[in-house]
């Protein structure tokens, strides 16, 4: 009944009708491949390089802040540093890693598809991302330096009067390219998930990671065009003599903020939801339980996405020109579905058999760090509290808690799925060392920043007043940042020492979802054959037919397929 059936699923493909990959090799293969696994791997490598570049900027920033009147960099260079640190991390690392790297590799094999719906569009997305990254970073090689107006590029500071020079235009150009990259990926993910699922894989049998990627893709389609439009307007103001954002011509500077943040807030959920999905999968597998509250998770994800489109002006509470109560209640409400997810993750672990692999440790690191970041975000949803925390280190601490949590999630994803797409496991001892460095480093880095912010230290400051307590807190934070950097070095070392050493096999983790049914790495077009799909855990059902998911109150017994059939939409 849960046996694999022959003949295999017949998929027409037109590269000559071969199962094995023929065609170009070497660099020409890389330039012309439309295979989602190759593209996904390219995204992974490029985005991790961006992580390292952004991280280097961060270490320089912390070096400058090691002393109150630091002279490591000049005031002008400092403005470039934090602008490019934020820009590289958000636009060039976190986004592409979230929706271009693992999603590209994993979503098709999680739903039993041979590739993404539009393989050539997928490849184009990668090339736009790569060239966009080069464009943005090449600002450093221009006479005026890279963009220096903050990763948010507020008008009027970002206009041609205040920021002349090619660096700013390269920033805009880079974002135009990466923006279209993201939009095309959003189209591809939606189409793939809507149209290429395997037989029996109904919508409510998709893994949570795929669900999260679907919602992410929809958010991308709703949000990124708005950013693109805003960037075009900014470029026009800078070069075509328009006055959209400048007072002198009858424009409205704060309009930039509305447009930017209408994209900007969904963007942070575009970044977060994929990592939520990764962590959900990892926790379930390493607790040997199904995802707790599967439908509740999906409902929570959809709610988060919907609400996230209506909260943008909580970044603008101190402008004095936005409707405070509307954005306050909408922002506070996001805590509810996020809390549902948190409790569902705990519920997944509850009464499980938890195995502390590196992936699971990283997922636990995510849970703890995200809890702190999420709780501190609730303060920021209250305008009177935002009035004295906005633009201080409290906000920086909040979002760094959240993004460091996403880094934990990404590491969990890499350790968990890395063996699937490379065929080899990573060394667990190095992994655990990396985890502890990352965890201790993250808390040491972020917690002093909360205190500094509440004590009155504003953000984007190259120098700060000569207060011994402030210096101490900054130094602890710097130490944390150094540990985070070391953990990244350890990660790279792990990849090197584990290179092709520990073959993984099809399913090293006794995992549950469909991608673990195929080989590691998957063959060309992903599956030689598919199992029967009767739940969101087809591989688990195939391997453990007596351990189907239970409703509350139903206890273990030997179940046949029909008796425990849950009705799915």
């Amino acid at each position: 009944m849960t046996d694999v059936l022959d003949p295999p699923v017949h998929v027409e493909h037109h590269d000559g009708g071969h199962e094995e990959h023929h065609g170009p090799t070497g660099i020409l293969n890389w330039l012309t491949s439309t295979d989602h696994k190759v593209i996904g791997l390219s995204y992974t490598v490029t985005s991790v390089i961006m992580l390292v570049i952004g991280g280097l900027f961060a270490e320089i920033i912390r070096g400058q802040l090691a002393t109150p009147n630091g002279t490591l960099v000049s005031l002008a260079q400092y403005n470039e540093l934090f602008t490019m640190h934020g820009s590289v991390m958000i636009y060039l690392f976190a986004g592409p890693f979230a929706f271009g790297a693992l999603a590209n590799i994993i979503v098709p094999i999680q739903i039993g598809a041979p590739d993404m719906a539009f393989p050539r569009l997928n490849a184009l997305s990668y090339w736009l991302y790569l060239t966009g990254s080069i464009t943005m970073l090449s600002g450093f090689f221009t006479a005026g330096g890279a963009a220096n107006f903050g990763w948010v590029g507020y008008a009027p500071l970002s206009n041609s009067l205040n920021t002349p020079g090619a660096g700013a235009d390269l920033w805009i150009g880079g974002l135009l390219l990466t923006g279209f990259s993201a939009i095309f990926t959003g189209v591809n993910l939606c189409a793939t998930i809507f149209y290429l699922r395997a037989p029996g894989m109904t919508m409510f049998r998709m893994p949570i990671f795929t669900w999260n990627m679907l919602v992410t893709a929809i958010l991308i389609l709703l949000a990124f065009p708005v950013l693109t439009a805003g960037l075009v307007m900014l470029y026009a103001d800078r070069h075509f003599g328009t006055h959209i954002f400048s007072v002198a011509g009858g424009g409205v500077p704060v309009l930039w903020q509305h447009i930017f943040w209408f994209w900007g807030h969904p963007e942070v959920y575009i970044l977060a939801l994929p990592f939520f999905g990764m962590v959900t999968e990892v926790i379930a597998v390493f607790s040997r339980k199904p995802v707790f509250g599967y439908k509740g998770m999906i409902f929570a994800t959809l709610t988060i996405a919907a609400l996230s489109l209506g909260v943008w002006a909580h970044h603008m509470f101190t402008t004095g020109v936005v409707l405070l109560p509307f954005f306050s209640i909408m922002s506070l409400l996001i805590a509810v579905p996020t809390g549902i997810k948190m409790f569902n993750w705990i519920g997944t672990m509850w009464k499980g058999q938890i195995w502390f692999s590196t992936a699971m440790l990283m997922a636990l690191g995510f849970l703890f760090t995200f809890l702190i970041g999420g709780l501190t975000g609730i303060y920021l949803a209250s305008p009177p509290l935002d009035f004295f925390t906005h633009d201080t280190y409290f906000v920086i601490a909040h979002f760094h808690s959240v993004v460091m949590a996403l880094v934990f999630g990404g590491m969990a994803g890499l350790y968990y799925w890395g063996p699937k797409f490379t065929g080899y496991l990573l060394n667990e001892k190095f992994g655990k060392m990396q985890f502890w460095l990352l965890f201790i480093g993250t808390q040491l880095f972020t917690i002093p920043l909360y205190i500094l912010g509440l004590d009155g230290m504003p953000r984007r400051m190259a120098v700060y007043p000569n207060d011994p307590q402030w210096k101490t807190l900054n130094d602890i934070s710097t130490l944390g940042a150094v540990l985070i950097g070391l953990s990244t070095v350890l990660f790279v070392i792990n990849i090197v020492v584990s290179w092709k050493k520990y073959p993984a096999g099809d399913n090293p983790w006794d995992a549950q979802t469909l991608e673990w049914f195929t080989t590691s790495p998957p063959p060309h077009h992903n599956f030689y054959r598919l199992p029967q799909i009767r739940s969101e855990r087809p591989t688990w059902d195939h391997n453990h037919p007596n351990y189907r998911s239970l409703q509350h109150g139903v206890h273990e017994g030997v179940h046949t397929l029909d008796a425990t059939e849950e009705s799915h939409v």
Partner: protein
Amino acid sequence: MKVEAKILLGLGLFFGLMCLVYWNWSLENAGGVMMFAGMLLGFLPGGYYYWWSRRMAPRPEDNPQAAQAESSVVVGAFPGSSIFPFVMGMGAFFVVLALVFGIWLLVPGLGLVVWALLGGTAEGRRSGEH
């Protein structure tokens, strides 16, 4: 396709309600327009999927009792390799650089883009054969 339709329609409806409340309460036009556009973006594909879901034959992936062999149809063209994404990407790169370094870069930029559009379309019409 019903679930897919409902997700998008639901999103459109949510946007519509938010827009109604927000625009009337704040009288702030940028947010109002963006929310209204979001509502349309949800209703357009959602409406299409809903209309189509009532007319289409049930698909194997919507059938909870489907057998694996049911999907023995051509699911799409999956070309193994194509130079045109790279060409298009390079074209877009040069077009953007033209925004920064001068209009003359539009020559290689648009040239590559047009080559990719024509070549890619022709390649697609051949179902991915080279």
